[in-house]
């Protein structure tokens, strides 16, 4: 859906910003893990690429609202922070494949890094509705850059918070506390959203423990995507399919949620030699 949504609020949440807009058609169709692609810069802009943000939450107020959380890191997001209520935003969504939910009431560990934590709260609601246990691990560089620590403590069956500088929770990285959190929560499945490096580590640890992991590649998509709608092929990464073949999948339309153990994390930014359709020249280089 491509809609013109009316901005309700733009507020600061710690070191991030949260923008809420009225977009009933998107709110209605949204499933946890999906994202919106927002046009930035206004009508006269020379900035053509949409910015992709995982949805934090949808509500039924005003017919249906959508809220997303973002770090202000480029002129496009700076423009977003300057929106005022009643401005309109051109938004496409909901986009991408959502988190797949277990049918049975299993124990779930939800791992968030930085602004990525925001994507986990609607997931937590959905899991709770299915009778799942929801345990949180939330991390970030400092107290201002961990999203949702208090909410997680309130709604989670448990919540571990970890920061690089120890300003809130324990000092350390998400990956460091993960084995303990997996053990404590007796997790059957892991869901994660956050920096790509965090997703890599979470996938590694979870796989080591034999636990399936779904990751939401919001940050990778933000860094690489131009459209969010699957048209441009700029957001590709190597993923191993059920048939064992590595394919270059789109983080937007084939993701943003992918099975963490299937992503070839150390080959991001490359075309692995054995990927489907990898350049022949490179095969030759390897052979010779």
């Amino acid at each position, binding site marked *: 859906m491509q809609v013109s949504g009316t901005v309700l609020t733009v507020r600061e949440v710690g070191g991030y910003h949260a923008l809420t807009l009225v977009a009933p058609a998107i709110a209605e169709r949204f499933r946890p893990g999906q994202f919106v692609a927002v046009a930035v810069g206004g009508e006269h802009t020379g900035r053509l690429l949409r910015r992709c943000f995982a949805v934090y939450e949808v509500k039924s107020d005003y017919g249906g609202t959508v809220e997303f959380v973002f770090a202000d890191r480029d002129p496009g997001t700076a423009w977003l922070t300057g929106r005022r209520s009643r401005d309109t935003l051109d938004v496409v969504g909901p986009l991408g494949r959502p988190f797949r939910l277990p049918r049975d009431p299993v124990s779930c560990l939800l791992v968030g890094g930085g602004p990525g934590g925001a994507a986990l709260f609607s997931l937590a609601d959905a899991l709770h509705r299915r009778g799942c246990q929801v345990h949180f691990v939330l991390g970030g560089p400092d107290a201002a850059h961990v999203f949702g620590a208090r909410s997680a403590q309130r709604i989670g069956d448990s919540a571990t918070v970890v920061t690089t500088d120890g300003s809130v929770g324990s000092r350390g990285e998400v990956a460091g506390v993960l084995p303990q959190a997996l053990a404590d929560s007796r997790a059957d499945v892991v869901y994660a959203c956050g920096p790509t490096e965090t997703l890599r580590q979470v996938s590694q640890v979870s796989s080591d423990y034999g636990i399936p992991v779904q990751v939401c590649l919001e940050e990778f998509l933000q860094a690489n995507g131009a459209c969010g709608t699957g048209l441009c092929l700029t957001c*590709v990464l190597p993923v191993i399919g059920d048939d064992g073949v590595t394919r270059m999948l789109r983080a937007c339309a084939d993701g943003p949620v992918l099975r963490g153990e299937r992503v070839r994390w150390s080959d991001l930014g490359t075309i692995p030699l054995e990927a489907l359709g990898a350049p022949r020249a490179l095969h030759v280089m390897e052979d010779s």
Partner: protein
Amino acid sequence: MSASLITRLGPVELPNPVLTASGCGGTGRDLAQFADLSRLGGFITPSVLPQPRAGRPTPRMAETPGGMVSAMGLPGPGIDTFLRRDLPFLAEQGARTIVSVGGNSVADYAEVARRLRDETAVCAVEVNVACPNAEDRGLVFASRPSAAADVVRAVRTHIRPGVPVFAKLSPDVSDLVTIALACADAGADGLSLINTVLGMAIDTTTLRPALSGVSGGLSGPAIRPIAVRSVYQVHAALPQLPIIGMGGIATGLDALEFILAGASAVAVGTTLFHDPSAAARIVRELEEALTARGIGRLADAVGLAHRPYGFVPPQVHALSTTEPNHEPKTEERAQ
């Protein structure tokens, strides 16, 4: 009464002149969520090669003022999967499909064209002459008249008569008209203008090229003046050859600019990334623009900017009437 948008690309009639540009509408599946493919003038596929290709590593694009640079590396499933999976989908949707043919050798192009010959769902063929030629140090075919002619001839030979073959050229040449002439002589039924302009962005944080491919193609509204000039130049030299104009089209008035310059159809590329439902809007805006100007048929607007119009100051008039279809000379440039 609203204007008729019907247009012709050689033997093919289209209900309106607004197409999606090669590589910018994906396989059609994702675009179909935002646009009824049967309502578009036509759908140009990403360039199809004989084999599957993964393309280049990320980062594949960078945002630039009014545009983007991208280096994709011609990713695609190859002709087999294209014929089995993508072309039938487009046919089902009722899209008038123009298949873009790519390759790194004349044999590649010939191979894809041969496989397309008996496909009745193919409405027209576009030859992406701006692919790197493995046999010529990776220089694109489009940069030499003879190389461009070779690939056009190879494709034209295999495609059924009645299915027009368009040669899609790159503007990065000293003399575009010579290349266009060579393609026409080699059997091209029309021309697609323009492919992306060679550009580059440097990441001022990593202090390195922003794209894995170092340089890439500049597209989007930023290049529109280059594209309009290319269409105008080539239409002046080859007024009988239909042109598909593209490069930065974002509105109906942008499309009209190309039509006035001499294009019989236009294609929307980068704008689809910004606005996936743009094509239908552009059709509507173009129809309104023609109607507002009292132009009843799109065909009457094709190339209109080449003729004098309304009040013409005496000196300009003198120039225009002596050379009504004159190619803008290089002296008619800046400064």
